């Protein structure tokens, strides 16, 4: 009995005979496959089209080096630019807008290639703002729970108080007159006219908000006056133009606003605080993961 495979008389199979295993053919095919793979990879690498897709997704108007231009953005721009509903825009109008969008995207991509993100201060400022904005947007998509808002309100009640209101008279005692006597007379109910006092003219418009009264009287005098009750008369205050006496007609300090009335502002403040905290956290995170080397003389 003879072994037909081991027989030296048997001839070597042809590489073209696919029914016979042939080592050389396997090697040749593997090499060809490797070469084709390398060629595709090289083409993709050097033409920036490595992951190019043949189809523009339904939501996009175009893909520029695989960066999508949203169809919705194009529709919004057509409508804004030409002032007509999208359906009534002519093909030429749509084409113009799309061309502008393509141009913009190409320039943005070219700018990134050229390193404008490093060189141009406007680009850098815009990038910082956009990155911070992105963090804020993510924070705002989730509505806080009601009890979180209530807790925030309870912790910051002063912020939601209304402006205090005050109605005043400010009298100026003539130089040389006895201001203390005038104050005592005013407190007893005498009129300013009878005492010969003149108004300063700074606070004669009736009710005004605290900030306005402070602006008119000056910080020092207002600080003295804001604690006085209705009908009270201040002690005399010396000033370059004479001695001032302030008479309070009505003083309504800031009143707390109930939560239900301040809810919209509570929500805004809560979100603003959340955004600020997230941005702080983000800055810490970025610093932590970055490789920052500072010159020894600046450390």
């Amino acid at each position, binding site marked *: 009995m003879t072994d037909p495979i081991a027989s030296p008389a048997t001839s070597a199979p042809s590489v073209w005979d696919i029914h016979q295993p042939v080592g050389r053919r396997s090697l040749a095919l593997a090499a060809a496959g490797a070469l084709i793979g390398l060629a595709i990879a090289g083409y993709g690498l050097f033409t920036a089209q490595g992951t190019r897709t043949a189809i523009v997704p339904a939501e996009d108007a175009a893909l520029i080096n695989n960066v999508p231009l949203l169809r919705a953005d194009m529709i919004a721009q057509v*409508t804004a630019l030409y002032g007509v509903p999208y359906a009534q825009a002519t093909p030429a109008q749509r084409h113009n807008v799309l061309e502008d969008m393509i141009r913009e995207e190409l320039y943005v991509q070219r700018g990134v290639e050229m390193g404008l993100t490093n060189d141009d201060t406007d680009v850098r400022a815009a990038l910082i703002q956009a990155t911070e904005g992105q963090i804020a947007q*993510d924070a705002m*998509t989730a509505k806080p729970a009601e009890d979180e808002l209530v807790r925030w309100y309870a912790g910051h009640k002063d912020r939601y108080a209304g402006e205090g209101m005050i109605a005043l008279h400010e009298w100026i005692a003539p130089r040389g007159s006895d201001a203390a006597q005038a104050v005592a007379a005013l407190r007893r109910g005498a009129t300013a006219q009878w005492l010969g006092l003149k108004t300063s003219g700074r606070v004669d418009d009736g*009710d005004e*908000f605290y900030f*306005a009264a402070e602006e008119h009287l000056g910080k020092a005098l207002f600080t003295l006056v804001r604690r006085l009750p209705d009908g009270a008369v201040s002690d005399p205050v010396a000033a370059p133009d004479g001695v001032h006496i302030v008479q309070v007609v009505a003083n309504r300090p800031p009143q707390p606003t109930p939560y239900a009335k301040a809810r919209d502002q509570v929500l805004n403040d809560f979100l603003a605080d959340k955004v600020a905290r997230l941005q702080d956290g983000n800055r810490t995170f970025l610093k932590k993961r970055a490789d920052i080397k500072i010159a020894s003389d600046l450390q």
Partner: protein
Amino acid sequence: MSFVVDFVTAIKPRRLRWALLLLAGGAVALGVGALQPNAQSAVLRADPEAILGDPQLRRVALTSGKQVFDTSCASCHGNAGKGDRTLGVPDLTDGDHLYGTGTVSQIEDIARYGIRARNKRGWNLAVMPAYARKMPDAAEPLPPQTPAQIADLTQYILSFTARATDAAAVARGPAAYSAAGCWDCHGRDLGGDPAIGAPTLTDDIWLYGGSADDIRRSISRGRAGISPAFARTLTAAQLRNVAVYVASLAPTRQERK
């Protein structure tokens, strides 16, 4: 053909039934799977304003749009889209639009880029100044108003819905309106400006409530409602669908007649 016959005869009838059932199920799943993206693609490729008029596109957009609304919008706008005056969240069913005119593409834009959501493509142009503050507006130098001027403005605005109680204050209203610079956003005719979200002041639709107290508070403390930007949390399809759904909540022109 002979292969199919061989296959059928080779397996037992009971198994055949199961196999056929399985095949049919698979075919249906494949069919639905294949059709759904196509229908959604058609919604995305269509003119947004035409979707509600096309029964098939309408069905696809509304079905998915309702789900998106329930998960992303209802927490503020309410399940029925009726809004919340304590937060200044608008009623989406009244046909009145603060920003734009209520087209699907405008609603989609708001859903994507938000209102004062710190997205530069969003609607960020204006806020209602707080006239009882030293600096009513951070962006523009506006004069603060006195309590009396705010009272006059309140009465003036109430007069358009026949609710004013102080005729003298109403008469002083136009001067106060001009002095405060209200016309810059709300217009000389108080008709508002949908390009910046300034509401009409002469109708009876109120974002934050229309009582004298509510109006006084709006003028005194200002308003600056927020609508989040969902550009990064919702897909393009979800945004389109929810915009169509929201547009469908408002009465059509015919219904308004």
